[in-house]
């Protein structure tokens, strides 16, 4: 129990720092911002309650916001993802898998894991970009930014997953 807590806090801090200090400061391109911290929300154990899921997501979103001077933006996107996660995860796991598990390639295999990660990240970056732009006149811009963010983030998450599996 303690070790999972320590682990959780460790990853929380590491991901917030990577997102807030490195990713947001290094300008790769105008579009396509990798939203790596989303992996924290995606990898919470499958038995995490809806309310704790919401709470953790809001917290990590807010921390990332503070670094980027966007209070409320990432927090909003994160709680939307937190609401959708249980359903998205259920679709990709067999009905009789009653045991709790940490979503990943090992526990879910590649294809289902990808089918879980992709819509999750898509939803997250869509909410993020819509709230960020806050006007419908720039629909194509929002769509391009959403897609770019999603692709970069998903690729990054999958690479990390592969690297983590080899260990």
């Amino acid at each position, binding site marked *: 129990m303690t070790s999972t807590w320590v682990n959780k806090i460790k990853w929380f801090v590491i991901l917030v720092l990577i997102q807030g200090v490195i990713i947001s400061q290094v*300008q790769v391109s105008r579009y396509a*911002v990798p939203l790596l911290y989303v992996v924290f929300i995606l990898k919470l154990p499958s038995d995490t309650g809806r*309310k704790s899921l919401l709470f953790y997501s809001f917290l990590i979103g*807010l921390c990332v916001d503070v670094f980027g001077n966007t209070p*409320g933006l990432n*927090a*909003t996107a994160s*709680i939307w993802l937190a609401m959708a996660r249980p359903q998205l995860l259920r679709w990709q796991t067999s009905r009789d898998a009653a045991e709790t598990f940490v979503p990943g390639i090992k526990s879910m295999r590649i294809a289902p894991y990808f089918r879980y990660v992709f819509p999750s990240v898509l939803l997250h970056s869509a909410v993020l970009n819509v709230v960020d*732009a806050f006007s419908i006149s720039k629909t194509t811009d929002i769509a391009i930014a959403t897609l770019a963010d999603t692709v970069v983030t998903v690729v990054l998450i999958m690479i990390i997953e592969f690297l983590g599996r080899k260990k």
Partner: protein
Amino acid sequence: MRNILDFLIKYSHWTLFVLLQLLAAILLFRFNSFQGSVWFTSASEVTASVTKVAAEVTHYFGLEKMNRDLTERNVYLMQQLEYYKELVGEKKYDNDSLMVIQGMQTMVRTDSSVVVIKNPPTMMDRSFVVCPARVVNISVRRLDNYMAIDKGESSGVRTGMGVISGMGVVGIVCRTSENYSLVLPVINSGSSISCKIARTDYFGFLKWEGGDPLTAFMTDVPRHAEYEIGDTVVTSGHSTVFIEGIPVGTVASKDESDDEMSYTLEIRLFTDFGRLNDVYVMALPPREELKELEKDIKY
């Protein structure tokens, strides 16, 4: 009653969702006001001290480019110095040894070799103090970009002070903590800085509408204004934030304004926010009288 309670318990996560969403929305809308708490920003003590470490590391990667810029700047200043030396040498000095250049700055000749530039007598009270600072956090991709610097109230930095760099104008301090400040840079859609075309003295406002961090717009330029592509734009000195003549950028092209009463010029900014490291905070003495006057005039 019981049903309602059951319903609320069963869907309590929705209640939490709505609550958190409200909280996020409040944060989102409150932040855009010019003045507010420094707490949820990158200039708060905690976040700024973390990003400062990272900024110090990344600072080294930019040293080569910075050296080149400094050398260029040195050459430019040496040329200027030569130019002024010639000007000073040509003039015959009387005993009071004062001369006015461009009607703005007065050069006081203290002895045969040293030349000190001071403000002319009428502007004596407008001398200013600069405080060097380092950028610890900056965004350039967003519509409302912000920048955190490592000087705060303890160094005398206050809300409303101007920030410049060796390249040109940067922005205005909008929030301060003890040791850090948050700056509203030119590349924020809420920024508006009074500027003018240096050659012809026509005024306008410097605005930014997202996109390229090197391209801004000068709005409200009168239709009869004379300008050419490539003209330098500088600060107008109309505000209490910047002194007159700080470089802003060059005129790149003309956009017709909607109201057909004024021009909007596209400005190519001198300041490259993508590689901004060292800046200066400018502290002009407050012009209380002017502020009082402006307060009275406002509706």
